């Protein structure tokens, strides 16, 4: 497939890995911020091909993982109401609340639907005027523009039976919080390419100055990630700390201005709790006054009283902060699997624990013989 296969090319990847090997003179710890990058690293097996000097820790950039348990419980309460059609991105259905997940709500007769775009939920609202359609508006700056656009359109179309349960979070605030943490051991960041496509990377410029840490905007294919790692390692070896763009085919410094405008129009910054991490100041979005009518928590005030505590068994907080690797958790692959997740990072297919479980268990197995015998198929 054009524009994909080129970035999964073995020779190109190996070339960059060799260059990383030649460049790195000492161990460096880098964090890939986005769950999509974690997924790609493990799916391609790139994590095993990196030289031993480079350690990648998996950051908090998985929207499903960091959505607080309390919000999942609110979603479940809303979806259980007979007058509600609850609409969500697919990933969220399997996330366990404190007692059950949205799949169980659906099985018990709740009207729960999956869409690829929040705009589809407006269509559902128009077709079901006697129901209230609640969309689960989660995600980083990547999903925020489309979610905001859905609300703008609902307002323009006078759709009174549409509301959104919002749990938006933002990347720079999370990076800031990590850098402020006394335990931090990350030398450089691979910033999330898709978030930067929307927001640009000017937001990171004050961070590299303040904390003297390199931040490299990085894509998602193996060749992209290897390039991001290489640029980050070069900066570290040369003692530089700059924002660099390793994903120039998609990202510009200023980002996507119209997308930023619609986010700014609908949402304003607020403090948000992150699952496994806690409240990070000004790390999320909530509705501005002009759009508050669409806030599902105000439309259904009963859900505001729901308050859930996180489980103390799971160490996903340490994993999301890059302080532990998934396989360092005693419950990993035992009590906690994708079928029976104890915590956020095992739930989502983008979560670090799920990615480790799905792709990473080979570490315990010997490396397979690379010469698979081939037939005339070539």
């Amino acid at each position, binding site marked *: 497939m054009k524009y994909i*296969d080129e970035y999964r*090319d073995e020779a190109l990847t190996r070339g960059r890995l060799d260059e990383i090997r030649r460049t790195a003179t000492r161990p460096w710890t880098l964090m890939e911020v986005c769950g999509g990058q974690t997924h790609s690293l493990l799916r*391609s*097996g790139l994590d*095993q091909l990196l030289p031993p000097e480079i350690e990648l820790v998996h950051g908090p950039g998985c929207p499903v993982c960091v959505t607080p348990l309390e919000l999942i419980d609110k979603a479940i309460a809303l979806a259980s109401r007979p007058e509600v059609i609850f609409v969500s991105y*697919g990933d969220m259905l399997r996330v366990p609340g404190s007692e059950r997940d949205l799949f169980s709500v659906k099985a018990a007769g709740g009207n729960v639907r999956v869409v690829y775009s929040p705009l589809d939920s407006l269509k559902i609202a128009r077709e079901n005027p006697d129901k209230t359609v609640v969309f689960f508006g989660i995600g980083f700056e990547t999903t925020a523009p489309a979610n905001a656009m859905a609300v703008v359109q609902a307002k323009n179309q006078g759709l009174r039976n549409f509301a959104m349960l919002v749990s938006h979070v933002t990347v720079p605030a999370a990076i800031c919080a990590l850098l402020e943490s006394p335990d931090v051991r990350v030398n450089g960041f691979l910033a999330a390419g898709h978030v930067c496509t929307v927001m640009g990377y000017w937001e990171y410029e004050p961070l590299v100055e303040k904390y003297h840490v390199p931040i490299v905007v990085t894509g998602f294919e193996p060749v992209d990630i290897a390039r991001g790692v290489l640029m980050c390692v070069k900066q570290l070896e040369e003692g530089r700390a700059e924002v660099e763009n390793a994903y120039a085919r998609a990202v510009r410094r200023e980002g996507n201005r119209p997308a930023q405008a619609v986010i700014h129009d609908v949402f304003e910054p607020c403090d948000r709790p992150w699952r496994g991490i806690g409240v990070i100041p000004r790390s999320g979005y909530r509705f501005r006054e002009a759009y508050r009518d669409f806030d599902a928590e105000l439309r259904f005030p009963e859900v505001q009283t729901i308050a859930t505590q996180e489980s103390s068994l799971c160490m996903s907080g340490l994993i999301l902060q890059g302080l532990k690797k998934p396989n360092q958790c005693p419950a990993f692959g035992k009590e906690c699997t994708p079928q029976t997740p104890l915590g956020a990072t095992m739930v989502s297919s983008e979560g670090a624990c799920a990615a480790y479980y799905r792709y990473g268990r080979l570490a315990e*197995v010997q490396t397979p*013989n*690379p010469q698979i015998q081939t*037939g005339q198929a070539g």
Partner: protein
Amino acid sequence: MPLNIASWTCPRPLQNYPTIVMGHGSGGKMMADLIQHLFAPLFDNDLLAQLGDSTTIGLSRIADGLSPDDMRHAIRDMRLAFTTDSFVVSPLVFPGGDIGELAVNGTVNDLAMSGARPLFLSAGFILEEGLRMETLGQIATSVAAACREAGVQLVAGDTKVVNKGHGDGLYINTSGIGVIAPGVNVAPNRAQPGDAVIVSGTMGDHGMAIMSVREGLEFETRIESDTAPLNGLVQAMLAAAPGGEHVGSPIHCLRDATRGGLAAVLNELAAASGAGIEFEERRVPVRPEVHAACEMLGLDPLYTANEGKLVAIVPESQAEAVLGMMRTHPLGQEAARIGRVVAGHPGLVVARTAIGGSRVVDLPAGELLPRIC
């Protein structure tokens, strides 16, 4: 208004309903009409024509088409294969096929995967009140056409009607009987280290065809389901590498890669055989449009369903012969060898990735869910 008894006539029951009504499952005249006018002409054969509570089949018909030598050993050495499957796909008609074709091919393929030659099918139709008669006609017609293509006879049937809202238009259950020739021994636990792993063609077509209509996604290219009967291909493969009682079956394992896709099948075979499986991701044939759709939706073609593709595990010595024969068959032209069975990591499936890394390919956890970004 006074009743005008003189001009009153008893309303005759409406015969030509445009939709299914509860009466069509009543066991009475309406049901008989439905069977007589819609089903019977499509599935006409002498066994179905018995119209008994069950269909009786002479044993000689099971041995039909066998050599005189096979006939002699038939009772002692041949085995029957018997299977059942239910079909609940939504939408009923999708690009490249419909539920009727799927219901025949699904059961035919399950029989074929045990090395059997499928012979007879039964079909149970569960109709939802309100189903359009035209839709039922179209689907019954494609059941009949699929039976002809697969060379099987529909010899028993049943129709039930459920209240509106209690079904998704139409469900079909099919059961099938086939015979396994002497010397054929295909089973999921027979994979042995050194065996070649072969797929019969491109992966993920059916799943993405259904996805593309179910999600209302509009792609520039139409992705069609690959639904097809694989019994002909299997018979050709068995003929390509004759085994016999003393040599053992030339084909160790066969599986049609339906729900869960290639990943699920390889995991099942590895687990059943207690061996490991290694394959090269880039050798797995995937249509560019299926690949593109999967990339866009955050899905993996390795986990996406097929309805006309099989996975074969074959001794290395027979692999080229089997592969060559597959490629001469219309349903195996894109057959490819993707990997092999290994002694290491028993029960585990490992893929070599495009960049030369490796990863464990696990069973899918549950329903395929699109990733958020």
